[in-house]
């Protein structure tokens, strides 16, 4: 087991370094930020001087080496706009993103798992068919649209919830719902199909033949088997949610990493973008790492090997 954890952790590091590399080169292809910080009529030698100052005139590979050398030590440079530590700025936005992601995930799980189980148990009934139709709708609705609709009804028309901003639990409601909608739909469908699959298994028949009542059969003997594949799905979604629900954060002016990243990209504030990508990639990889360990825990066949 320890062997497995160490190997798997090594992968986390590789994934993060690769993500940083890819984003570093992609962002440089899009040009350098110097012109954005100088007046449009700045003389050429001043631009060159500025490039020299920031180190953008060196060969790309040298810049990359320099960046990586500092990045692995946690130094992503200073924000080009505010001259503050880039990583520090990103980290200060993490709590807001966490708050939103975790509440969305919890809401999604609380709704989706019972719904999926019930849908599977009552398969091909009206309940199941309506449920499946709703999950398709849920997955198809773009979050910017759902966000705007929610703002329109609850903030603009009914005036019972704030349209944006952060800080209190009330501010959390609409962005959480917006963000959770997609995960609810995904988890419900997945739980349903995993459950249907498990209910057909021989060992479920064995449990029935032992006289296990239906409720216990489903909630104990079938559910634990169905949850194994769902863990992976939850980890993937949590990674996405934590990695900055960019659109939702922008729509609701939520002060999280996603919105910061969006603004920094617009401003070509490279150090912040790279620090943000570093954090997101790290979180994403770590969440998946934890999911794999958890997966091994619930599935004894992996644990023992």
């Amino acid at each position: 087991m320890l062997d497995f954890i160490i190997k798997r952790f090594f992968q986390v590091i590789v994934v993060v370094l690769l993500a940083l590399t890819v984003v570093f080169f992609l962002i440089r292809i899009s040009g350098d930020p110097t012109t954005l910080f100088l007046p449009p009529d700045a003389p050429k030698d001043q631009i060159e001087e500025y490039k020299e100052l920031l180190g953008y005139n060196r060969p790309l590979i040298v810049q990359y080496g320099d960046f990586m050398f500092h990045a692995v030590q946690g130094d992503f440079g200073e924000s080009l706009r505010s001259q503050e530590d880039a990583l520090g700025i990103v980290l200060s936005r993490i709590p807001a993103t966490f708050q939103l992601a975790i509440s969305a995930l919890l809401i999604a799980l609380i709704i989706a798992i019972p719904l999926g189980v019930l849908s599977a148990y009552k398969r091909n009934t009206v309940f199941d068919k309506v449920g499946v139709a709703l999950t398709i709708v849920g997955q198809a609705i773009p979050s910017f649209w759902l966000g705007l609709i929610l703002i329109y009804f609850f903030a603009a028309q009914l005036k019972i919830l704030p349209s944006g901003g952060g800080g209190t639990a009330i501010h959390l409601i609409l962005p959480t719902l917006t963000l959770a909608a997609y995960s609810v739909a995904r988890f419900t469908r997945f739980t349903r199909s995993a459950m249907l699959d498990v209910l057909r298994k021989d060992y479920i028949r064995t449990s029935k033949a032992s006289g296990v009542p239906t409720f216990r059969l489903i909630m104990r003997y079938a559910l634990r088997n169905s949850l194994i594949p769902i863990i992976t799905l939850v980890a993937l979604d949590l990674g996405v949610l934590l990695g900055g629900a960019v659109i939702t954060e922008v729509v609701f002016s939520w002060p999280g990493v996603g919105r910061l990243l969006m603004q920094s990209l617009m401003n070509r504030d490279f150090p912040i973008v790279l620090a943000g990508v570093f954090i997101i990639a790290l979180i994403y990889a770590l969440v998946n790492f934890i999911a794999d360990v958890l997966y091994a825990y619930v599935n004894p066949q992996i644990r023992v090997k």
Partner: protein
Amino acid sequence: MSDTILKVKDLKIQFKTGKKTVQPIRGVDFSIKKGETLGVVGESGSGKSVTSLAVMGLLPEKTSEIISGEIVFDGKDLTNLKEKHFRKLRGNDISMIFQEPMTSLNPVFTIGEQLSEPLKQHKKMSKKEIETAIIAVLTQVGIPRAEQIIHEYPHQLSGGMRQRVMISLALLGQPKLMIADEPTTALDVTIQAQILKLMKDIKKQHDMSLLLITHDLGVVAEMCDRVVVMYAGEIVEVAEVKELFDNPLHPYTRGLIESLPSKNTRKNRLYSIKGQVPKPNEITKGCIFANRCPFAFSKCFEETPPVQHTGNHMSKCWLQDSNKDEVS
């Protein structure tokens, strides 16, 4: 009547798939006496498993239906029994061993957790008593280091061991009737012999009845008192085991016996019955075996043969008809 534990009378089962309906079981009649081992033989698709699942009340609720007949267990009609009451019988008075030991145990629960279930459901016992009972039964079925096994998971055991665990699961409720659906088919030959011997011993010790479903006549000869031969959802012959092997009346039974390999005839190709069991939707009028029967004559294709009784030997074939004047 009181020495009969299970009586199945004119059982007809219907399956629905979409708008189509098929009848995999058409008028099955048999009974098992207390302490008796009844073998049910037949090829795949002959309806053996469906019949046994009907006795357990484990047929899929939505797609299947018992359209006529009755199943009487220990004086109680099971045919229209509510699930709530049926549950009290399963794992308690009737238990079942399935064909596939590899997939019949839940992979994410320990052996102990799974074995405690029939006791939790049916007996009022403390945790400690349950554990003691489980260890006793596991030891009885020949599982070494039972105290450790109960904390292990199914994938840590071999196929033969898992089938022993399945047998102990079926034994825990001290059932009056045990149904074994091809219990040795998935095991290799040496393990098969061990499991069969185990089942025989256990049946004797617990004085229960055994319904043994198999397609292996060797197993039948070894284990059973009486045999029911099923073909395409109908019973074609019933006899005491010795009588059946000595004097098979139905051409299908004869075919099955002839298909057995014997030690001495290595030179010849093994006999096989030509053709395949008709699917439930391919059943036409006349005898169901007529299209594969080497002795079939015109009447066989026209009319369903009547049930013939010769003492305790029952068969369903025109050849046994006393006024079989057309036979050459």
